[in-house]
C-alpha cells in the first residue's frame, strides 16, 4: 500500500510539473493584466502543431522542434496580446476574455485544417526504459519535466527579483498607474511579459507533447483547463502558488485515479476546486480578480 502511495506521488509530481508550468504562464499574464487568457493553451498548441508540421514535412531534431514550438508559441501569443489584451487594457475584463476565447476557436480550427488527422505522432523525448529506483519507476521525461519546472521557477524568480525588468514587472503588477509615473513603459512591459509567458508555455507544451509522443487538437483545451485549475488551486495571481497548485493538482489526480478510477479523477479535482472556492479559503481570494 505504501509503495503504491509513493509511486503515485512520484507520477503525480511529474504530471503536476506540466500543470505548474502552464499555471506559471497563466499567472504571469494574470498578474500584470488582471485578465485570464483563454487563448494561452491554444497558442501553445499552435507552437506544437508548427513543430509537428515541420517534422512531418522536413524532419527535425529534438532541439529544433523545441525551438520551433517556443517560437510558434511566442508568435501566437503576440497575436493574442495585440488583438485581445492591448485594446482592452483600460476596459472590460469580460471583453478581453471573450476575445481570447474567439482566438482559441481560430487556433483550434486552424490546427484541424492544416493537419486534419485526429492524432499525430511526435518524436518522444526519451523512449528508453524508465528509471528504476528500487521498487519504484520514474519516467525520464517526467523527470525532465520536473527539472524544467524547477528551473523555470528559479529563472522567473531571478528575473522578477534580481533584474531591472523584473522590478518593472512587479511595479506594473502592484500599481500600473504609479509604474508609468515612475517612467516605466507599461505597454512595452506587458508585451514582454506576454512573450515570456508564451515562451514558458512553449517549453511546457513541447515537454508534454514529447513525453506523450503524440499531439491532438485537444491539447489547447486540456492545457488551458489544467493551467487555470492549477492557478486557481494555488491562489490566483501568485507565482509560487501556481507551482504548488500545479503539483497539488498532479498529486490529487494521480491518487484519485489510483483509488477511484479515471472518471472520478477529474470529478474529484473539480470538486476540490469548487469546495475551496465556495469556502473562500484565504489563499485563494486575497487578490481581487475583476
Amino acid at each position, binding site marked *: 500500500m505504501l509503495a503504491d502511495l509513493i509511486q503515485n506521488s512520484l507520477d503525480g509530481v511529474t504530471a503536476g510539473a506540466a500543470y505548474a508550468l502552464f499555471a506559471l504562464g497563466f499567472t504571469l499574464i*494574470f498578474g500584470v493584466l488582471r485578465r*485570464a487568457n*483563454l487563448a494561452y493553451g491554444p497558442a501553445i498548441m499552435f507552437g506544437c502543431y508548427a513543430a509537428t508540421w515541420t517534422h512531418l514535412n522536413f524532419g527535425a531534431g529534438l532541439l529544433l522542434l523545441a525551438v520551433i514550438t517556443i517560437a510558434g508559441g511566442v508568435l501566437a501569443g503576440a497575436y493574442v496580446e495585440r*488583438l*485581445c489584451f492591448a*485594446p*482592452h487594457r483600460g*476596459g*472590460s*475584463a*469580460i*471583453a*478581453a*476574455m*471573450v*476575445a481570447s*476565447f*474567439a*482566438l*482559441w*476557436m*481560430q487556433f*483550434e*480550427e*486552424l490546427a484541424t*485544417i492544416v493537419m486534419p488527422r485526429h492524432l499525430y505522432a511526435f518524436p518522444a523525448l526519451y523512449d528508453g526504459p524508465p528509471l528504476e529506483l528500487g521498487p519504484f519507476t520514474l519516467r525520464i521525461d517526467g523527470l525532465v519535466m520536473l527539472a524544467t519546472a524547477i528551473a523555470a521557477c528559479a529563472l522567473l524568480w531571478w528575473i522578477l527579483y534580481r533584474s531591472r525588468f523584473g522590478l518593472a514587472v512587479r511595479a506594473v503588477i502592484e500599481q500600473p498607474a504609479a509604474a508609468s509615473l515612475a517612467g516605466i513603459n507599461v505597454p512595452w512591459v506587458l508585451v514582454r511579459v506576454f512573450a515570456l509567458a508564451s515562451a514558458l508555455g512553449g517549453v511546457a507544451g513541447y515537454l508534454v507533447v514529447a513525453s506523450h509522443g503524440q499531439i491532438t487538437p485537444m491539447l489547447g*483545451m486540456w492545457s488551458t*483547463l489544467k493551467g*487555470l*485549475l492549477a492557478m*486557481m488551486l494555488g491562489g*490566483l495571481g501568485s507565482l509560487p502558488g501556481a507551482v504548488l497548485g500545479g503539483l497539488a493538482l498532479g498529486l490529487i489526480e494521480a491518487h484519485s485515479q489510483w483509488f477511484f478510477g479515471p*472518471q472520478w479523477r*477529474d*470529478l474529484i479535482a*473539480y*470538486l476540490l*476546486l*469548487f469546495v475551496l*472556492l*465556495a*469556502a*473562500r479559503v484565504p489563499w*485563494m*481570494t486575497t487578490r*481581487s*480578480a*475583476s
Partner: protein
Amino acid sequence: MDDYAIGVLTNIGLFSFLALSAYLLLVAGEMSFGQQAFFGVGAYAGGILTALYGWPLPLAALAAMALGALAQFLVGLPTLRLRGLYFAMATLAAAEMFRILFELFHWRVERNGELAGPDGTQGFRGIRWIFEHGIEPVHYLILVYALLAVILLLLVWVERSRLGAVLRGVGLDPELAASVGIDVQKAKLGVAAAAGALAALGGVLYAHHNTYIEPRNFDIMLGVHSLAYALIGGLGTAFGPLLGVLLDIGVLEGTRFFHGYRMIVFGGLVAVLLVFRPRGLLDERMVLWIRRRFS
C-alpha cells in the same frame, strides 16, 4: 422551407435559450462558464419524464425548468459571493462535475421489450415524444420560437420594470446597489435560478429535437460559446444574445460560404468587433439610441 433551413433555424432558437441564460447572469455582473450544465439537466430530466414515464412534453418541460432552477440556485448559493474569474472558475468546475456525473449516470428502465434510458457515455436514445405525436420539424420550429417569443416578452417587460433596473444596478455597481438597500445576494440568486430554468428549457427542447443526448453534448465549449454570444450580441437588451447566435450559427453556418473556415472567420470577427464595442453590438448606448429614434 427545406429541411436544412428548418434545421439551422431550430438550432438558432435552441442556442438562444442558452445564450439568454448566460446573458441574464452577465447583466447581473456575473460571468458563468457553466450554463451548459443546466442545459444538460433540462435535457436529461425532460427526456426521462417523456420517454420513460410518458409525461406530456409541456409538463416535462416545466418540471425540467424547476430542476434546472434548483440546480443553479444550489450551485449559486455558496459561490455568488465570489466575483469575476473566481465565480467563472467555480461555475466551470461545477459544470464539468455535472458532465462527468452524466457520464456516470445510468437509469435503465424496461420499456416495451427494450432497455431504455440514460446509459452513461453511451448516451440516452429514443426521446421520441415529437415522433409519437406526429409533430413535423416545421411545427417544432414554430413551438421553439413561440416559447422564445414568450421568454423575450417577459425579459423586455422585466427590463423596463423596476426589477430590471435593480438587476442592471447589481451588475454595474454591486456596492452602490447594496448601499441603496438592494439585497445583492438575493437578487443574484434570483437571477441564477431564472438563468438555470431558461437553460433547462433550452435543454428539454434540444433533447426532443435531437431524440438522442450524450454527456459530450454538454461540455465547456457550449458554455463559453453561449457566454460569447451573449456578449457579442450586446448586453443592452435581451435581443443581444439572439444576435450573437444569429451571427455565428445563422450567417456563418447558414451561408456555408466559409465552408470549414467558419470558426476562423467568426473568431476573428468577434475579436475585432469587441475592440470597437466591448459591450457588444446592441450595448446600452445603442439601445438608447434606437429607442430614441423610434419612440
